[in-house]
């Protein structure tokens, strides 16, 4: 048992869980002093492999919940007039608005892919790595959107009513804490998973085109109705299609949906 604690720490198992494992195995050896439990490194590796499965799933579900919370928070505080993409209130506000839209969409797509992967019950380290990578991208993009929302809030502060300002500050801080906690969970799942290349599951191009078309259609129709202008809807649709193509090119390989 001497080296077991160190080996458990090496694979990312520490604290109460490590103490519990050592106590359980010590009890086993008291029951059967001749038992062959294996070398400490081997035992620690087995625990890491088994625990990486539920930890990855849990961190993905936790991450998705934190992102959903962040999205709702941003949506509520933006309904007071915070979000502005087209520069009516200055370029800082506009950049912040673009950051919220861009980060939010990347986060949504990566989060849905991660959730889909986790629901399919991944078992091998390569499958787990892919889910972890998608969750990581979703959390990073969600954090980016949240930071952009914070920038916007600071920039539009003089124009906001006190009530909306009081709402906007916790709407940035509380979800940031939730995302931080989800990132911590993901980090511990990654530490347990053996290092290997994630398995890629490329999407057929037809599916990518169909999803892109659906996203652009929603943007065109939604904007046209919201702004009472088809010109506005079409211009946002063009931006959406450019953004979609760029994101697929930049993040597709990292998310395991293109070769």
């Amino acid at each position, binding site marked *: 048992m001497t080296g077991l604690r160190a080996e458990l720490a090496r694979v990312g198992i520490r604290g109460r869980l490590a103490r*519990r*494992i050592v*106590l*359980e*195995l010590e*009890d*086993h050896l*008291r*029951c*059967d002093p001749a*038992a*062959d*439990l*294996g070398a400490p490194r*081997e*035992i620690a590796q*087995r*625990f890491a*492999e*088994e*625990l990486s*499965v*539920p*930890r990855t799933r*849990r961190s993905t579900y936790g991450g998705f919940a934190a992102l959903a919370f962040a999205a709702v928070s941003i949506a509520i505080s933006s309904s007071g007039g915070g979000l502005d993409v087209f520069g009516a209130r200055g370029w800082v506000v506009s950049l912040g608005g673009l950051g919220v839209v861009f980060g939010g969409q990347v986060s949504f797509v990566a989060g849905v892919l991660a959730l889909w992967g986790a629901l399919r019950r991944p078992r091998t380290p390569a499958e787990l790595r892919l889910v972890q990578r998608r969750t990581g991208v979703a959390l990073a993009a969600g954090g980016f959107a949240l930071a952009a929302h914070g920038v916007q809030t600071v920039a539009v502060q003089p124009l906001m009513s006190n009530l909306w300002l009081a709402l906007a500050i916790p709407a940035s801080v509380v979800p940031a804490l939730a995302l931080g906690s989800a990132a911590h969970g993901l980090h511990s799942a990654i530490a347990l998973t053996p290092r290997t290349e994630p398995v890629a599951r490329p999407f057929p191009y037809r599916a990518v085109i169909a999803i892109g078309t659906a996203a652009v259609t929603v943007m065109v129709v939604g904007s046209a109705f919201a702004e009472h202008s088809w010109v506005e809807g079409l211009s946002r649709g063009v931006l959406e299609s450019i953004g979609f193509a760029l994101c697929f090119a930049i993040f597709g390989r990292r998310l395991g949906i293109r070769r």
Partner: protein
Amino acid sequence: MRAETLKGHLDVLILATLRDGPAHGYAVIEELKQRSGGAFELAEGTVYPVLHRLEADGLLASAWSTAAGRRRRVYRLTRRGRAALAQRRGDWQSFVRAVEAVLA
């Protein structure tokens, strides 16, 4: 029996071992050995990580208990664990029936 052969079935075997009541890790291993007539003599080090995973999945619950001055982690089936056991047992029986029908 080779450990590799058992690997895919270890979850259901452990769940079945705990069906009759709570037990600690050593007792689970002994029960497996006994019920299988010695065929399932597993390397001890493989069972504990699986017990931990099944607990993390919510199929088992565990708590410390003290017996004769010794602290032991005792595992029991949860309601989800019972449901999972029933389902996997059904799957296994269908599989066995199908294989037997092919081999007959």
